[in-house]
Structure formats: structure tokens, C-alpha cells
């Protein structure tokens, strides 16, 4: 049974207000797919009943869960592959030369979902920098606390490790746990997870050398994207690197970033 327009409009407004995510009005099926488990969890016989429940209450934990559930959590290990090679083979060596090899580096995977991106970053750094990777720290944040909990556990199904992850890295950095695969401690130790809503004012975050903000801007309206990039400028070190999704660019939004080639890959740095 399709969702009535009034309920779907309420949901679209809720998600826009609290996460600045724009939901296509033609995509009510996403609400049905993504909220059905939550509706069931809250004892609702239908999605419509669940949305009426939300409308009947003032904003609270259940609304936050619904907003987080509507975000696109799709991710996989080494998604698009090129950014990780660019990071490990060009960006990090460049930063280490600039800072001195003993200097620690800080990276941030914003909108990390269930953790595949920050763990991919960690594995790429371990492969290329060896023991020096012990001095690198990766902050991984997301709007959705359920996704973060999964990420912190570092436990993945076979289907999840089958895609994108080189078999050699699977054997090197994961332990088989029955039907599941768990990230080994030397990778897990490099990543710390915390909740963060990119569309809200950011808490105090130490400046970072590298920021992965991939496949996030596309979900926001133009003004939100500008605000987000302004916050990125405050957090990213002057010679730091910003990685966006392959379909994304800060051009036409913020002229404070310049494109920079890292091998065959294009990332961005603040304009000096």
C-alpha cells in the first residue's frame, strides 16, 4: 500500500529540517523500504501508523532514528578504489614530506555509515606506510547511531567483504568469526567513531590533514552544501586535502577550494 502524500510530505519536511537532506518527492518507496523495520520495532502495523505516531509527538529520539534511517547508508570497501590509491600513494607521502615523517596525520571520514570507508583508509595506509600508520588517526562520524554501532564492532557479512575489498587485504586484516569477518585490532585501533550531524553546527573538531566527504553533498540543497563547505574550510588544515565523490565538485558552490591532482585522481585543497 503506497504512502499517502500528506504523510510522505511530513517525512520529507522532517528530514529536511533535521538533517538538511532533500528527498525526491517521487521516491516514497524509499520511506517504505527504510522505515519499515523501525515502524515494526515501535509496534506499528504500518508505515502510515508510524508516521502518525511521529506527528503526534514532539521531536525526540524516535524522530532522530527516523531521520537517520532515511539517510542513504550505502557504502562498501574501497568504493571507487581510486581515492584510496590517491590517498596512500600521493597525498599522504606529500603530507609526510611537508610535515616530516615522524609527524602524526589526522584524517576524517565524514558520513562513514557502517565503517567500510574509514577501515579502507586504514588498510590503505597500513599497506603503504607500514608501522608509520600507527601515528595516523582516523575520525569517523555519521548521523546514524545504529550505523556507527555496527561500524565500531567492525563485523561484516560475507557479501560485504566480497565487494571491493582485495582478497589479499581480507586475509591480512580480517579474522573469520563463523559466518562473519571482523576487522583486526591493528586496523580497528586506527579509527574512532562518534555521532555527528553534518547539517547542524559542528562540535569542536581538531583540524585535520585529510577529509573524506564523499557522496554526501549530493543529498543536500545548494545552500546547505555551501554552509558545509564553509565548515570544511575551518576544519581542514591550509595544506590539507578534501576528497569528494566522483560526481561531486565544490565549484559553483565555494571558490575557496582548488582542484589538485593526486596521481590520476582529482581532490581539492583550500585556496591559499
Amino acid at each position, binding site marked *: 500500500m503506497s504512502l499517502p502524500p500528506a504523510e510522505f510530505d511530513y517525512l520529507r519536511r522532517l528530514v529536511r529540517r533535521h538533517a538538511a537532506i532533500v528527498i525526491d518527492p517521487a521516491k516514497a518507496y524509499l520511506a517504505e523500504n527504510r522505515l519499515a523495520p523501525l515502524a515494526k520495532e515501535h509496534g506499528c502495523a504500518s508505515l502510515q501508523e508510524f508516521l502518525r505516531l511521529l506527528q503526534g509527538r514532539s521531536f525526540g529520539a524516535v524522530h532522530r532514528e527516523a531521520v537517520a534511517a532515511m539517510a542513504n547508508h550505502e557504502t562498501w570497501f574501497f568504493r571507487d578504489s581510486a581515492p584510496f590509491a590517491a590517498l596512500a600513494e600521493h597525498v599522504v607521502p606529500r603530507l609526510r614530506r611537508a610535515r616530516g615523517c615522524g609527524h602524526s596525520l589526522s584524517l576524517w571520514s565524514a558520513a562513514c555509515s557502517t565503517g567500510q570507508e574509514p577501515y579502507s583508509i586504514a588498510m590503505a595506509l597500513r599497506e603503504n606506510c607500514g608501522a608509520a600508520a600507527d601515528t595516523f588517526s582516523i575520525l569517523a562520524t555519521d548521523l546514524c547511531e545504529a550505523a556507527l554501532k555496527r561500524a565500531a564492532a567492525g563485523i561484516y557479512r560475507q557479501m560485504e567483504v566480497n565487494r571491493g575489498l582485495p582478497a589479499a587485504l581480507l586475509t591480512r586484516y580480517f579474522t573469520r568469526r563463523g559466518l562473519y569477518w571482523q576487522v583486526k585490532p591493528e586496523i580497528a585501533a586506527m579509527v574512532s567513531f562518534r555521532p555527528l550531524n553534518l547539517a547542524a553546527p559542528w562540535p569542536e573538531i581538531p583540524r585535520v590533514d585529510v577529509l573524506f566527504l564523499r557522496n554526501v553533498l*549530493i543529498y543536500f540543497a545548494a545552500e546547505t552544501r555551501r554552509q558545509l563547505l564553509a565548515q570544511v574550510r575551518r576544519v581542514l588544515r591550509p595544506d590539507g586535502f578534501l576528497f569528494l565523490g566522483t560526481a561531486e565538485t565544490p565549484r559553483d558552490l565555494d571558490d575557496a577550494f582548488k582542484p589538485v591532482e593526486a596521481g590520476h585522481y582529482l581532490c581539492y585543497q583550500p585556496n591559499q
Partner: protein
Amino acid sequence: MHALVVDDSASMRAILKRTLNEGGFAVTTASNGSDALTVMAQLPPELVLIDWNMPGMNGFELLREIRRQSRYEAVKLIMVTTETNKAEMSHALAAGANEYIMKPFTPDVVYDKLRLAGLPVPQAEAVECV
């Protein structure tokens, strides 16, 4: 480019053939290791997908035999198997497999593994807007 699919299951051969065809490969199939070697000698492929558990010569033995022959040095070999034990995976990689796909899998898994093995595959970046 040309691929050879080696699997004793007719349905698996059909699935992989379709997936590879859609990825731009011409595909030949074989149902056992011995036939695979015969096919390779007649029409050397750029890629071989190998099931592990087959009667007669199993996939690991086929892998080792292919890697023993220098004329096939450039051929990419990918295991496609229900063997999901880390030890088997490590042995296959050490014996010269370029990649390893655990069954079951989706077409995206196959395409990603082809890219990891250094083969050209059309990149289908579908960006879904909420």
C-alpha cells in the same frame, strides 16, 4: 577481451557468462579443469574464472597448472568458489590467483574484482539521490 569460465555447474557457468558478456567480455566455458586447459591452448583468454570444487582436476590444481606454464603468465585468474575459508583463500593467492570471489555474489562483486585484477570494466557509477 576473452574470458574462460570453468565450473562444473551449468547454471553457474550461465550466470558468469551473462555477467561477463554484460561487462564486455566474449566468453567460453568449460565444465572441468582438463577441458579448460584444452580450450586455453586453442584460444588463450585474458581472464579465467575458476570454481574450486570440481570432479577430476579441482580448481586449485587447475590454477597451479596454469601458473606453471609461462605462456599464461599474463592471464588473470580469479577463483569463484564456495570455499570461504581464509586458509584456502591464502593458498589460492599464494599459488597465483589474482583475486577471489566467494559465492554467492552479485554482478557488482564480479566487476569490482575484475578491476582489482587490473582488467578494464565499464564503470557504472549510479548515484542515487534520496
